[in-house]
């Protein structure tokens, strides 16, 4: 990386004059180093800004487009209008402005993805932490149960549950979250297994800290950086799953707009109105691409084992 200052390594060889590097700055904590290295990866930074911008748009959608999204009026005059200045993304079969719907859809798609990720992350972290910390029989039992659960194809399970429960959004989030936590659990368990051997955990135990506090205060915070990368990847996957479910008609149901069900509506009208399916898909692709780039950037920074790579 061109702008990265060379880090000096002091090797203490007897008889050799010790080279004194620049004074070690007090604020070079691992966290700051990570931030600096992440900032050097321009693509990842741009991607992060895109995500932040999208989230902002999603949050402000009700202010940006005050029109009622589900209102249907003057259908015959306003339906299937191609993109224009007043309707940048065109209108759909009911004459609704697709630009406003796409902005609202951003909120739905992003929040479903992120919330489901949080559900999965919490469940997985707690499960993995207990298995890893307690060890022994409990660990064995928990991990075998997890293996059995993983044997069931995830996507299929989601499809099935979402279809059977005719889910509204809250339940959909729960279904997606509660089926996606297994990888996190494995990851956290692995981290904790190695962390609990360290001296600081022994010290915590020596001063009589109860087990649950050792897990919450000392083990989980140290394991979380490994989880972060997989969390961003999980959001990507979950946003994709939500879009797919909505596309198949078993996720977020109209009239609530989600990118997935907008594309589905567009597929039916492909011959007369290409724009209905086109724009939500572009937004979806940009979102997924951005999350992928950020997760690549995070992995380079947080995972010391990963090679330092200079590609996108």
């Amino acid at each position, binding site marked *: 990386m061109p702008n990265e200052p060379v880090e000096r390594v002091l090797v203490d060889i007897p008889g050799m004059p010790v080279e004194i590097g620049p004074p070690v700055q007090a604020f070079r904590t691992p966290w700051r180093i990570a931030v600096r290295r992440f900032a050097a990866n321009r693509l990842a930074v741009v991607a992060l800004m895109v995500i932040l911008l999208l989230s902002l748009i999603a949050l402000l959608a009700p202010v940006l487009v005050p029109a009622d999204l589900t209102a249907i009026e003057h259908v015959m005059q306003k339906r299937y209008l191609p993109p224009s200045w007043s309707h940048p993304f065109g209108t759909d079969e009911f004459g609704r402005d697709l630009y406003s719907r796409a902005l609202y859809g951003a909120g739905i798609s992003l929040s479903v993805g992120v919330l489901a990720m949080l559900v999965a992350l919490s469940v997985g972290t707690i499960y993995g932490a207990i298995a890893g910390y307690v060890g022994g029989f409990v660990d064995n039992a928990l991990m075998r149960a997890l293996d059995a659960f*993983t*044997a*069931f*194809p995830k*996507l*299929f*399970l989601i*499809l*099935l549950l979402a*279809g*059977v429960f005719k889910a509204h959004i809250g339940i959909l989030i729960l279904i997606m979250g509660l089926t996606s936590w297994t990888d996190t659990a494995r990851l956290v368990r692995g981290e904790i297994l190695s962390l609990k051997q360290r001296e600081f955990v022994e010290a915590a135990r020596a001063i009589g800290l109860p087990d649950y506090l050792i897990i919450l205060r000392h083990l989980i915070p140290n394991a979380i950086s490994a989880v972060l990368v997989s969390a961003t990847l999980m959001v*990507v996957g979950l946003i*994709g799953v939500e*879009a*797919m479910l909505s*596309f*198949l*008609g*078993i996720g977020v149901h109209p009239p609530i707009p989600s990118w997935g069900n907008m*594309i589905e509506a*567009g*597929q039916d009208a*492909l*011959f007369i109105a*290409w724009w209905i*399916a*086109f724009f939500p*898909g572009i937004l*979806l*692709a940009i979102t*997924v*691409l951005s999350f*992928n*780039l950020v997760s690549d950037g995070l992995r380079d920074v947080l995972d010391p084992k990963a*090679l330092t*790579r*200079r*590609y*996108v």
Partner: protein
Amino acid sequence: MWLRNVAHGDFGESFEYHRPASSLILERVPYTLQLTVLALFLGAITGVALGILSVVRQYSLVDQVLTFASLIVYSIPEFWLAVMLILLFAVSLNFFPLSQTRSLDYLLLSTPAKIADRLWHLVLPVCVLALGSAAGTARYMRNELLGVLNEEYVVAARARGLPETRVVLRHALRNAPMPIVTIYGLELPFLVGGAVVVEKIFAWPGMGALAVEAVTARDYPVILATSKIAALLVVAGNLLADVMYAVVDPRVSFDAERAG
């Protein structure tokens, strides 16, 4: 009693078709297989080839274009890609058929024309599936190969003055296939169970489409049957990946004594 029947592959009668769920599924399997097997091979071959190409020409323009393109394709949701390809090739250009496995006048055609017609209908769905899988494989392949290229024996091979292409193909490539094998082992369930979205979009009468239909119609025997098959396939895929490890990498052995 009912559980025993399920274990024996008798899932009962479909609510919607009033036929045994298992025969309903068996009849769909060939359609899914022709779609996914083709796609998987096409995806694997192009993916591996592109991965090698970009490593051999590392940091060149070709490499950068390939890497970025594969990331973009990788990020595009499959179903949207399918819709857009339909829009481009089937709606605008009227070049490939929109959906279904054969034309309306299929039964009137001669045998070679029948085969051609089938293949023609396969092009778009297979391309959608293969593109996604190729992009993923290419990314993975590139990562793995780059990792292997730092190994000492690769440096040694270079030091002997072997051309770079030979180094990559003969020395590095042999040590990279492990993760690729895993991926394809894990994709086995997809092979039969779930080109769900693509089947749905192209009105392809496969297992995935059947599963979605069953879920929306709450056709429980069929749901149950498809899920059981999918679960079995996941287990089989994991097993296959493990066995393939031993085939690909002689260091892995299931025989504990030999390994010790």
